Structures are given as C-alpha cells and as structure tokens.
C-alpha cells in the first residue's frame, strides 16, 4: 500500500490526467502533485492520486522494479497484488 505505482501521462485535462500504467489507461487526480505535469511525464501514484512527478533521469530505474514484479506469474505475490490494487484505485477512463 506504500509502494505506489508509476505511470506515463498521456493527456492532462485540468486536475485529471490520463495515465498509462504498463498498458492500462486510467485517470488519476493531480490535486496534490507539487509540480506542473505534462504529457510524456512519469508520475508516482497512490490511491488514485499522483504524488510525485518522477525526474526524467530517474524514470528507467523506477520502472524496472515494477516491470520485474508484474512479470511474476505467481498470483500470490503480495507486491504484484499491491501494484494491481494501486492501478485499480485509479478511475476508469471516462
């Protein structure tokens, strides 16, 4: 629950961004992120809110853990389940 999930911003509409999470498109809220966010940026998200714009130089390193965990087939993996939960916590695209 503390892990959050990174995603790539596709479009920004006011305080809502459409974000790509490893192939899944969802809406997240931008109310509490403290930097302007633009399409192409990566953001760290927690329970449906972007909490941090990930510095571009750090994106690759940040994504690696998630890619590794999501590749795990085991449905029992708590970290992978947490990531899926974080994606589910965002909003269905309108």
């Amino acid at each position: 629950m503390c892990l959050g999930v990174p995603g790539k911003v596709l479009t920004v509409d006011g305080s809502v961004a459409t974000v790509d999470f490893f192939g899944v498109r969802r809406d997240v809220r931008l109310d509490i992120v403290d930097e302007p966010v633009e399409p192409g940026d990566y953001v760290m998200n927690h329970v449906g809110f972007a909490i941090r714009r990930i510095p571009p130089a750090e994106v690759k390193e940040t994504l690696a853990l998630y890619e590794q965990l999501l590749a795990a087939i085991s449905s029992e993996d708590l970290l992978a389940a947490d990531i899926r939960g974080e994606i589910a916590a965002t909003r269905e695209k309108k």
Partner: protein
Amino acid sequence: MNDAGRNAMQFRDPARAAQMASLLERLVGEIGREPVSVMHVCGSHEQAIARFGLRAIFPRALEVIMGPGCPVCVTDMPEVDEAVALAEDGIRIATYGDMLRVPGTARSLADAQAAGAKVDVVYSVTQAQQLAAKLDEELVFFASGFETTAVATAAVLLGSPPPNFSILSAHKYIPPVMEIVAEMPHTRVEGFLAAGHAATITGCAIFERFVERHRIPVVVAGFEPLDILAGLAKLLELVRDRRPEVANMYPRCVTREGNRRAQEVLWKVFRPVGGRWRGIAHVPNGNLRLRDEFARFDARRRFKIDVSRLWDYAPPSLAHSCICGDIMAGIASPSSCSLFGKQCEPDNPVGACMVSTEGTCRIWHQYGGQLDLRDKDERA
C-alpha cells in the same frame, strides 16, 4: 515453497547485490557488536525484503525488524468497533479490503457483513465517494492508512463530496510512533529505515528533530532490493560512525521539504491527536482526525456511535496468546509466536498482523513461513 519463495533470490543485478551483501558484512564487523538491530516501518519494505529473500544475504549479526509499519495492523479494536457498530445500525460502510477481517473487540466488519450489514470494498477514497454519489443513503468511508493515504482522503474532502458521504478516520501518522519505539525501555533499535513514499509527502526533514532528540540515524530508502540494501549500508555506516543523521537514499522520489502541496492539503483537513495503536501504546499525535471545519463529514460527529453493546462479548480466547504487539514493537518475530502458521493463518487470522497483506506475519507466511534462513542454520 511457493512460486514467490522460489523466485525470491532473483535480483536484477546479482553482482551488485553480492557486493552490497559483503559491504553490509564488513560494516557490521566494523561496528563490532552483535546483534546490530535496525527497524523499518513500512509493509512494502517487508514485502520486498521477503519477496527477494534479502534476509538470506544479510550478515548474521544484522537484525532488520519490521516495526509498526502496517496501518491496518495498528488500527485499534475500538476503532474497528466503531465501524462495526455503524454497520450493525444499518449504515453502509466502504473500506479497503484489508480492513474487513481486522478483529474488533467482539466482531470484524466481515462478521457484520456476513450477518447482513452493508459493507463494500473499495480501492480508494475516490471510489467510495463515487459510490456515495450513486446512492440515496448514507455512506461512511472507514479510512485507514498512513499520511501518504490520508492525503488522498483530505483531497477528496476539499473537493465537493456528496452530502451523504462521511469519513470514519483511522488514519495514522508515522513520525510520532518512531519516538515511541525509540523510547521503549527494552528497545534494541539503533537506526531506522524510513518508508520512501511516506517521505515523498512529508520530506525527509521531518526526521531531523527525531534524530536530534534520540541520537538515532534515519535513512530514507526506496523499494528495489538494491535500494533497500543501499539504504541499510548507509544506515550501518551512520551507526558505525556514531553519526545520528538523516540520509536520503531515495532522491528520485524524496526531497528534504517533501511535497508541500500535499502537506497543505493534509493539515488543512486533519489534525494529529493522541490515541492507542493496537499492540503498541498510546501514541501522542499518532492519529489523524478531521478538523472542526470538516465536522459535517466526520462520521464520529454525524452519527451517535454506540460501541458499548459490542463490549459485552469476551474477546476470542486465542487472542490472549497473540504477540502481534511485540512483533510490531520489534521485540519478537513471527517465528517465536506459538500461533503462527498453526491456529493463526491468513484464512483464519487471530491477530491483525496476519490479516493485512502488509502485516509481518502475513508476509512471512506468504513467502514461506520462515524468512530468516540464518536462524534455520543456527538450529541445524
């Protein structure tokens, strides 16, 4: 061993992991005492340590303890009782899945649900709010989580939630409980590994006063296996050099000041009050409650919650032997619990640490039951 256990030793960079392991070994040797005990306060850290089998490569003399880092686990029974009482009074409750089976004094929300109460599982406060908007009845969101999650609850209340929506806050604030652990008479904790994403919000400067007061170093670390190993190495270095300092080993998400906007949102809506954390202690300023300006969204003020009828029942007898509190305080581990893996399992949990996917017992059970391979060696 399950799949996760079998895959536990896969590192993205095994060579660097091996380097880090020998660095840890050297640092512990230079400290020259054993055990050297450090504590982390984050369920995701414990999941990563277990998932990647890190304890197998820690030096024998290094103890990495999970402290009170699972918000669901430290939700106190009377807080669960409030949610159960509301549900039994016919009020619809929405909450995170992990909260369902957390034992209250007599019953859990799952028990109430099985008896016909209206309890919905949601992944986020936003979903709870959306659910309320579709309904003609009151909906109470039973909110748990540390400051990272509380910010989301606060942001929703600052928007315009529907009038039938309210919050029963069990949100907790991590920095004060670190003080409690540091002041426990039998504490062996010589350093803290702080959770990366909570610090994303609060900033690592929040730990500076703690470090000054308790002379214990704090290192903020990320969640990659190598992030955790690097965080531990930095922590041991600070312990070795007797340098009580704050170090940020997760700069890609954490700054000194943190996320100012999120902090404003958090403190506009919540105020810290003292309260009990299950199994730990009364934690001054450890609970987050809604400020007076948001009283109309506060379930505690909107409803008359009568928990007294729940207290007529004796707690389940097994709970007397549950040592969740000692485990979260860092003075016991799941393997020293007589119930662990026997009477207490994920499908039939006795204590909160076995309920939540962020609880120490649940994590240890999931990843093979005995995570500290070094203990095994000693027994053999």
